């Protein structure tokens, strides 16, 4: 048995369409079977509500008098991108306010615009014969704009990683706050409600598909950037008219020490054209698998610890290395359900119709890493020999070594050669000033270290973040095998 878009739309028009959410569809298929479900159900609605960092909006302000051609412009202090026509701009959600970064960003500007709040617009120009005005300083609201188009190159990821942290310090990431030593885990995505999980082969979701976007109507306009269908990591390029949207579904956010973004509500209706689509939309959380990834390793290829499914993730606890770890979502299941229900009501009331895609999304493409022409240097390429002293050495001895070797950092080891601390020339100076005699009193025991195979950029960041100038290089047994200081990084 098959149905066409026209037949489904006719039913919607007559108020006869049977619409259920992707969660409800699971029970229907379980109870009635795929054949009956395909006959009875016309549309399955999906929804997701999470951080979508690629998002932004194209805005057109209209001409000032005399006219201005913006060179730079700011909206509530957030620098907007201007490399297009005179009074157009793109405000990106991760761009942060110049004066209060990590608090307010482009995502908040979009939320404030949709909330009808006045937005401070300041712009400057180098001036031309046709655009003589040098500066604009005004307040605008959404109503004052000619066009305000939410335009997001990568939204609605099919699924996403579950993040954990094996390192010994708290990490602040785009996956939220990750406690050390696998202290917690975070994930993203609505599982069985996720739009692309219900149409994993992109049969009904394609270019031109009408969708719920930010509380208004939007469209899929192509594959998302980094669309990775062969790994079931598809994404969508979407647009919609901000003027129809609601601030309930567009929320500016800031992730501590990471930056700003926006949470967007997105829902897609799936027409049940045949049994195939009935089967696909009955996907359960346990059928959607993802990987637990260690964000403690700040490399492109992060270690995968194991596979996990969304049922386990939604349960609140997962097991990692025999230990129970609390897991929670960054995206909102509450909002995802609300969106799927809202879309369901729109269709039931005859306010929203379905359309076939003008073109299907790519199903074979792969996502490539960045091509870099410079070869990555590692710590082992630039490290030097470490100056090493023993825990029992006298402060005098250490001081002599510092002078002899002309090196500010001395690694302190025990009988087994294990790193126990670090002493700098400043520590020695202070020891003299404070009249300290014993080495163990003056060493820094909590040493920030690096390893041979760490990229030098990561070693450099460790020094910058911790405000230090040297890192002992250690092997897996904590034995000292070298030293890297800011000097080597400068000369690299």
């Amino acid at each position, binding site marked *: 048995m098959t149905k066409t878009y026209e037949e489904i739309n006719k039913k919607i028009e007559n108020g006869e369409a049977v619409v259920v959410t992707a969660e409800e569809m699971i029970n229907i298929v379980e109870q009635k079977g795929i054949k009956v479900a395909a006959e009875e159900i016309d549309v399955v609605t999906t929804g997701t509500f999470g951080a979508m960092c690629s998002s932004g909006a194209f805005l057109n302000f209209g001409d000032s008098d005399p006219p201005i051609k913006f060179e730079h412009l700011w909206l509530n202090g957030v620098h907007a991108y201007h490399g297009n026509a005179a009074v157009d701009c793109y405000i990106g959600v991760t761009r942060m306010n110049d004066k209060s970064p990590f608090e307010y960003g482009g995502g908040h500007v979009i939320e404030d615009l949709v909330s009808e709040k006045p937005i401070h617009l300041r712009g400057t120009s180098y001036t031309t014969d046709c655009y003589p005005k040098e500066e604009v300083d005004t307040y605008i609201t959404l109503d004052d704009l000619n066009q305000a188009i939410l335009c997001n190159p990568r939204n609605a990821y099919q699924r996403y990683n579950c993040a954990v942290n094996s390192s010994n310090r708290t990490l602040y990431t785009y996956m939220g706050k990750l406690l050390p030593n696998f202290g917690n885990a975070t994930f993203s995505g609505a599982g069985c409600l996720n739009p692309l999980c219900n149409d994993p082969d992109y049969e009904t979701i394609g270019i031109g598909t009408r969708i719920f976007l930010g509380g208004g109507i939007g469209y899929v306009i192509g594959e998302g950037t980094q669309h990775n269908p062969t790994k079931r990591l598809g994404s969508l390029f979407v647009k919609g008219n901000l003027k129809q949207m609601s601030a309930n579904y567009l929320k500016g956010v800031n992730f501590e020490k990471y930056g700003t973004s926006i949470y967007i509500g997105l829902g897609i209706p799936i027409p049940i054209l045949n049994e195939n689509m009935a089967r696909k939309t009955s996907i359960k959380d346990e059928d959607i698998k993802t990987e637990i990834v260690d964000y403690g390793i700040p490399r492109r290829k992060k270690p995968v610890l194991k596979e996990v499914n969304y049922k386990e993730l939604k349960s609140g606890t997962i097991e990692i290395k025999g230990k129970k770890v609390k897991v929670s979502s960054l995206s909102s299941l509450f909002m995802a359900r609300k969106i799927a229900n809202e879309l369901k009501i729109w269709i039931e009331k005859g306010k929203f119709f379905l359309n076939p895609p003008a073109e299907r999304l790519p199903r074979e493409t792969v996502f490539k890493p960045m091509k870099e022409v410079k070869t990555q240097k590692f710590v082992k390429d630039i490290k030097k020999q470490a100056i090493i002293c023993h825990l029992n050495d006298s402060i005098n001895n250490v001081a002599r070594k510092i002078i002899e070797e002309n090196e500010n950092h001395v690694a302190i080891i025990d009988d087994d050669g294990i790193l126990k601390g670090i002493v700098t020339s400043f520590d020695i100076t202070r020891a003299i000033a404070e009249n300290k005699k014993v080495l163990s009193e003056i060493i820094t*025991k909590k040493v920030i270290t690096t390893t041979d195979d760490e990229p030098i950029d990561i070693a450099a960041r460790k020094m910058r973040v911790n405000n230090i100038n040297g890192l002992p290089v250690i092997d897996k047994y904590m034995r000292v095998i070298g030293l890297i200081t800011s000097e080597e990084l400068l000369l690299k």
Partner: protein
Amino acid sequence: MTIININIPVRIIDSIKDYAKIIQDVVKMNISFDILKFSTTPKGITLIIDVPSEKVSQINEAFKKEGIIVERKSTVCVDNELCIDCGACISLCPTGALHLKNNDELEFTKEKCIGCLICLDSCPRSAIKET
């Protein structure tokens, strides 16, 4: 009950006996309390204890005599207007004070909050505040 934070600097504690003595002094005051968190750092010992509200000042004075720093421990509150029920805070909460109701809606049970404040900087909407 009131949650207070006690910092015992390292110079006061030479051995575990000193710690036991301090606890005994409190026990002598006939006050029962719950230890919610016990942590040691190079700077000393930190105790987060839950005591009957009317005994706070008595404990306060007893500890201050010993050179121990006592602070009223703050807890957090969640601004429901700002909260978007994402759950970014939940996996960080050691006691389950922050949890989901009906599997999807954020609920905060103040009685369970021990004021560890780990969640404070985790909220993307800045909806969690110290009280």
